[in-house]
């Protein structure tokens, strides 16, 4: 798995991690001020086509960062799964954006630029920041009246490659080309409305544009890592640990985990529907192997105290699903050792015995118990009484690993 991003707080401790955020903010403010963003008439000129600095700086920033990010993920240095991607709430975002557009042209700043205006003692910036405080305050006081709408049109972590159904690389290339076209258009508009001569602009911008296109093409060629690629990178280490049975927990440990209210336990039953209907552990969710891929983002977004336990009849299918989840950066994933068969070996009561004939000789990963009726979870073994098993000893294997994916973005 890729090394970056880092779990900063876990590695460095809070003060040092905060220092890094302080430095990033410093660089951000420095660049904004250096580009002229503390000077409101320069920002407003964007909307009269006289000076397109806002668009140029912003879109250059976006495409440079985007190209670097997706080149890093393609090379396997950076894990896109663990990067914060703003979740999409479509309509609140659009309406909020329109309101901000109004604020931009009236007030002459956006929140980030107003901070640099404040820092350089521009009084219009100071009044803008005070106004922004008032607006934020007003929102906190009124959001309750439309909270349902504010949470509507939620699409989760939804990206442009998913929207268009194309490879990430093509979207990266498309965005770069679109931005370059906008830059060309901006320079034409500045010529007409702002009396600026594009020939005065430095020649190196053409080389920069060329370099961005070349790297974007390279991203298209490389492609983003697939689950198989991601697994291949960690396979030597993880296969060794699987052989050492590091992640296969005993049924009794799962039973104890079910009763541990400090943990958010998610049990994934990857057997077919027929077996699941015959018998499953209470609260285990049936999920097909194909469906797993659509649920990864959701699993990564679960709180840090979440433990996943994957189960099949024995261990073969569960191990395959485990590999997918681990390769896709889901944390704290375990396998029910011995599978559902093993579970029943431990916990089947007389009640289940009445419904079962002789234990079958089953091939690998088949249900050995021969149920004569579909019991589902309506039997004692689906939720064994823990009191009866308090004394059973086992070697605990579940260790909570620190979560690396950010839980909120820059606006929380």
């Amino acid at each position: 798995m890729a090394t970056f991003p880092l779990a900063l707080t876990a590695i460095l401790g809070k003060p040092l991690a905060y220092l890094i955020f302080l430095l990033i903010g410093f660089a951000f403010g420095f660049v904004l001020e250096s580009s002229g963003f503390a000077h409101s008439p320069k920002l407003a000129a964007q909307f009269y086509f006289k000076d397109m600095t806002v668009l140029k700086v912003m879109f250059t920033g976006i495409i440079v960062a985007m190209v670097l990010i997706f080149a890093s993920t393609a090379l396997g240095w950076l894990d896109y799964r663990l990067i914060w991607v703003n979740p999409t709430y479509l309509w609140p975002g659009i309406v909020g954006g329109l309101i901000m557009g109004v604020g931009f042209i009236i007030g002459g700043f956006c929140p980030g630029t107003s901070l640099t205006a404040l820092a350089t003692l521009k009084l219009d910036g100071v009044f803008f920041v005070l106004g922004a405080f008032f607006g934020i305050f007003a929102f906190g006081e009124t959001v309750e009246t439309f909270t349902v709408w504010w949470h509507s049109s939620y699409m989760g972590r939804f990206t442009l490659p998913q929207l268009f159904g194309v490879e990430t690389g093509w979207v990266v290339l498309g965005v770069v080309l679109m931005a370059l076209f906008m830059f060309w258009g901006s320079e034409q508009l500045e010529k007409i409305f702002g009396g600026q001569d594009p020939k005065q602009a430095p020649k190196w911008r053409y080389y920069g544009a060329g370099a961005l296109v070349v790297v974007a093409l390279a991203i298209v060629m490389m492609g983003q890592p697939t689950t198989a690629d991601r697994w291949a990178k960690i396979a030597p280490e993880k296969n060794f640990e699987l052989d050492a049975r590091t992640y296969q927990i005993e049924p009794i440990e799962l039973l104890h985990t079910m009763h541990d209210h400090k943990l958010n336990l998610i049990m994934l039953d990857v057997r077919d529907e027929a077996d699941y209907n015959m018998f499953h552990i209470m609260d285990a969710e049936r999920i097909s192997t194909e469906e797993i891929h659509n649920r990864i983002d959701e699993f990564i977004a679960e709180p840090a105290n979440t433990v996943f336990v994957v189960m099949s009849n024995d261990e073969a299918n569960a191990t395959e699903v485990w590999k997918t989840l681990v390769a896709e950066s889901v944390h704290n994933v375990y396998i029910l050792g011995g599978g559902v068969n093993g579970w029943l070996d431990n916990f089947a009561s007389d009640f289940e015995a009445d419904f079962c004939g002789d234990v079958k000789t089953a091939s690998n990963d088949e249900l050995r118990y021969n149920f004569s009726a579909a019991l589902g979870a309506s039997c004692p073994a689906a939720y064994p009484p823990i009191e009866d098993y308090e004394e059973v000893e086992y070697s605990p294997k579940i260790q909570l690993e620190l979560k690396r994916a950010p839980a909120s973005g820059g606006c929380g």
Partner: protein
Amino acid sequence: MTTSVETPKRGQSLTNIFKRPTKGYWNPYLGGTLLGVVLFLAFFITGQGLGASGGLNRILVWVEDLVAPGHVDRTPYLIDMAGGDLNPLDSWIVMMTVGTIAGGFVSGWLRGRVKLETNKGPNISVRTRWAMAFIGGGFMGYGARLARGCTSGQALSGGAVLSVGSWAFMFAVFGGAYALAYFVRKLWY
């Protein structure tokens, strides 16, 4: 490296606090490239992008929590940040906001641009500019919370990592500003 684009016309320069020679702004493509590198490093190292309105939000909630802690504890939107013993300032985004102010100051000071002044269009008074800045800021603050992010946290950061919502948001911001620009042109020209 630092192509002088223009020497910005100053409004009422009340006091010159630091007498350093005023320098021009960076070329926008240079500024944009460095902004992109900063944004990339933020994502690469921390997994987070950049942000500004989140920091302002938490600073405000901190004040609210000092003034009316009971009210904060009863408002669901505020509890997440400052309910009970939670300190709303204990967040990376606040650090980033403080850093942004410091970075803006140092950049402005180095180039002789730290001056107590009001920048405005030629046809409005200073007081009108202040009032408009406050009103515009109010819209910005409200809109940024509604959209769950501002130009930095949504448009710039979400745009670079290809979030659909962030791109829709970005076009809405430009759309809103362009739609109104003609009607408020007196403010700027």
